[in-house]
């Protein structure tokens, strides 16, 4: 249980950062919907886990939050990417791509052998 959330949270953070990069400032609900949509609803995201992850990113200084008005005039907390967050996103994306590339190569070579 603990291990699974850890892995999940790691990728969740990356998704959050990427979402904020593409869409700009967004509230928690928006981020959750966007992640779900991007994954073609293949990921069933437990929205509740999003908020601790957002808090963690904010504590680490990768995102910042601000209260504002939503599209249908509701008060909502908007998150946006900071400069450190942008760098972190680049780094994490690179790491992730590298990891998947290695794994992909490994899997194809294993198939050939």
């Amino acid at each position, binding site marked *: 249980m603990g291990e699974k959330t850890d892995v999940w949270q790691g990728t969740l953070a990356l998704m959050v950062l990427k979402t904020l990069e593409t869409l700009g400032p967004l509230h928690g609900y928006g981020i959750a919907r966007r992640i779900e949509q991007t994954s073609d609803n293949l990921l069933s995201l437990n929205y509740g886990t999003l908020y601790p992850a957002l808090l963690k990113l904010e504590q680490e200084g990768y995102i910042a939050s601000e209260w504002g008005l939503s599209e249908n005039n*509701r008060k909502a907390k908007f998150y946006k990417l900071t400069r450190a967050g942008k760098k972190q996103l680049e780094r994490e994306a690179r790491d992730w791509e590298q990891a998947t590339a290695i794994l992909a190569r490994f899997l194809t070579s294993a198939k050939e052998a």
Partner: protein
Amino acid sequence: MRQWQAKLRALWMRLCGMFHRDRTREEFAAEIEEHLAMHIEDNLRCGMSFDEARRDALIKLGGLEQAKQAYRERQRLPWMESFLQDVRFGLRMLRKNLGFTFIAVLTLATGIGANTAIFSFVDALFLKPLAVPHAEDMVRIYAKGPSGHYGAGFSYPEFKLLRDHSSSFAALAVETERPQLHLVNGGDSWEIRGEFVSGNYFNLLGMQPRLGRGFLPEEDTVPNRDAVAVISDQLWKARFNGDPAVLGREIQINGVPFRVIGVAPPEFYGDLTGLPVEVWIPAMMIGAAGYGCDDGSYNCSLSDAIIGRLAPGQSAAHAQAEASSVMVWSATNWPERPSRRQLILSSANGESPDDQADDVAQMRLLMSVTASLLLIACANLAGLLLARGVMRRKEIAVRLSIGARRSRVIRQLLTESLLLTFLGSAFGLVFSFAAKYLLSQFFVTDSEGFHHLYDLSFDWRVLAYSIAITLVTGTLFGLIPAIRASRQDLVTELKDGGSNGQQVSGWLRHTLVIGQVALSMVLVVSAGLLVRSAVAAQRGTNFDPAHMVVLRLRPELTKDTPQQVESLVRRVSQRLSMIPGVQSIAFMQGGEGLVWRQNGRDAQIGLPGQQQTEPRSGLTVLKQDVSPNFFQTLRIPLLQGREFDEHDRPDSPRVAILNEALVLRLWPDNTVVGRTVIINGQPFQVAGVSADIQPPNPLHAPEPHLYLSYWQSNATREGDIRMAVRVAGDPAVALPAIRRVVQSLDPNVPIGEDMSMAEQVRLVYMPVLLARSVMSFCGLLSLCLSAMGLYSVLAFAVRSRTREIGIRMALGAQPGNVLRLIVGQGTRLALMGVATGLIATLISTRLMATLLFGVRTTDPATYISVAIVLLLIALAACYLPARRAARIDPMQALRTE
């Protein structure tokens, strides 16, 4: 790197998050509310009914409370919060049991304080780096001689070879410490400790003089040319009134005029741990100051050691390897160095390896003593906590039954004991400062009157040590009681108030008490042996240090000819005997030894007929030239014959006095006086036989020793004259008058080592006295602790057995029976402790054999009396609980609980 910073930032934010909980809680509630509202709106737009929409939103959220919980945990530091909770609760518990807290804190304060104080000495003696910039690069190179000593030293050519052919060092400098330079400034004169160093010495250390300058490199190139000196700040302030005009002034050192060119900064005492240097002189001036080689060359050992700074990036191991390959002593390379030598490179921290050897043994003993004391304190507290754990069973049972995990209960109990230890440790620090001051009094001067100075200041090593022992102590005495207390059967516990709990921890508490008694037996017996040893050592065996004044004259520094020296010595002894209250006077000359120590220069002794055929057939013994009345003044018993008198002159028959050990080596039978011995190739007649004076180490057998008459011998008159004056009253009162007389005869003659002989004896046997004091203190405390431990075990037993005792009494037991029951239990524990302690003592006192004068490690009288004292104290500790038990009212006892 950046990630690490981000983690730190997060930790900080969470720490801050603990302080504005309410605001963030409301904020998150609002955020979640908006989230749900948006989600529901979306769902409604998709055509769900309101109930459906709301339900879907909540399901997607995955549980509102869980989300809040996860958010809360992320927002703050949960472990920190529970820790703070434990601390708050622990403090409340400590406040509630003020008596317990007071005793525990006091116990821990003395235990931890004593350990910290001793560690401060370990730190100062062995660990502290030099007080110079980048001290971690400083190394010292020693030449280890065939005898295993590190002070074989280096000659100038050897130093040059090392300096010019090794690349591991940024710089190297020679240094030779001499404790007794004689400084004359105007009409005043003193003995000071000086160091002969290379011209680059101050640059090497990175030391800037506070006034003037250090040496120039060219001031250390030509022997006996550049008579310049840098003085210490202390000397400058004490002897030159801090006058800046001291620069350029001429002072005399060992009769040679030197010019003062600089004053060292206030915190700089030189680079020798414990030996504060007062004047620095270029190494090339060592001959001028009277310490040159006999042949006037620089090829003998001029430097005690070489101090160096590693070149950047060089390791000590590499430097050692390189230096050893450069400096190879062999018969072809260094024909003047016949003996085998080895080059040793060590860190410049702490004392020289030769000095360390003795101090390591001493510190090991003291550390094990204070560690034992702390161990007793731990056992004591563990016993108290076990008892408290039994009393708190109900509280803990409630905690466990409403869902606290065992680990959580243990953590909470451990927090309490660590709180106690940290409180104790804080007071212990205060105690350690006092103890450090008292202990440092043992290290102020040595037996020759030279000052020592150790940097005992508090540093991070001492802090780390005291924190480490605090944590270990707290865990040591807290863990087992905590585990015990948390392990219980909830049902029986809550049902019948836990009267069965005591038996479980009973044996453990008994073992702890037995251990305490046993350990304090070890400490008290050791203290007893050391007290007796200290008395014996200070009384003196076969000499009498009471009512004696000693002083050391060094006339050869200011007198040119042996005749002048002789004349001064004669006048001094004549004038001293005229002082009222002076009963007799003696002096001796010979090497470095003290007047009452069998020490001196080597001499070959043999029997007639042996010496021509085999040159080595004789015995090498130590020889002193002594004055008439020497034996009478020091009260060394003469077993046979007479002592030297005024008639033993160069033209009268040569006579010698041998000590008993020497006589036993030469002639197994007894008639000795009048026989002939050959000393250094010349025949002497035996005039008398003296008793053996007590050796420096009780394990050593008395060494063979030889006395010749000073006035008869034709020695060169070089070396210190050590005088011993027997006075009628207090030696301290007589001392100034004696000094004045000597100074009136010759204001320039260096006087040193002036003190009472009793004081000198004390300083020589400092290790015994130091061990005695520490051991007595710890022994006394351990007695109190053990008595307290025994008392608390019994008091607790009485309290928890009230009902049982009540039943016994109701069935007809008399108060006397009850009294015997409790006293019997206490005595049994004490007896077991004493028996265990006896065995432990027999084993451990052997470690102190080198400190025990006049008493054996197995001295039965000490053992028996300590055992009796321990048992008596145990009885006293039993008395109060036993009386309380005997006064139990059966009716009341059965009604309660």
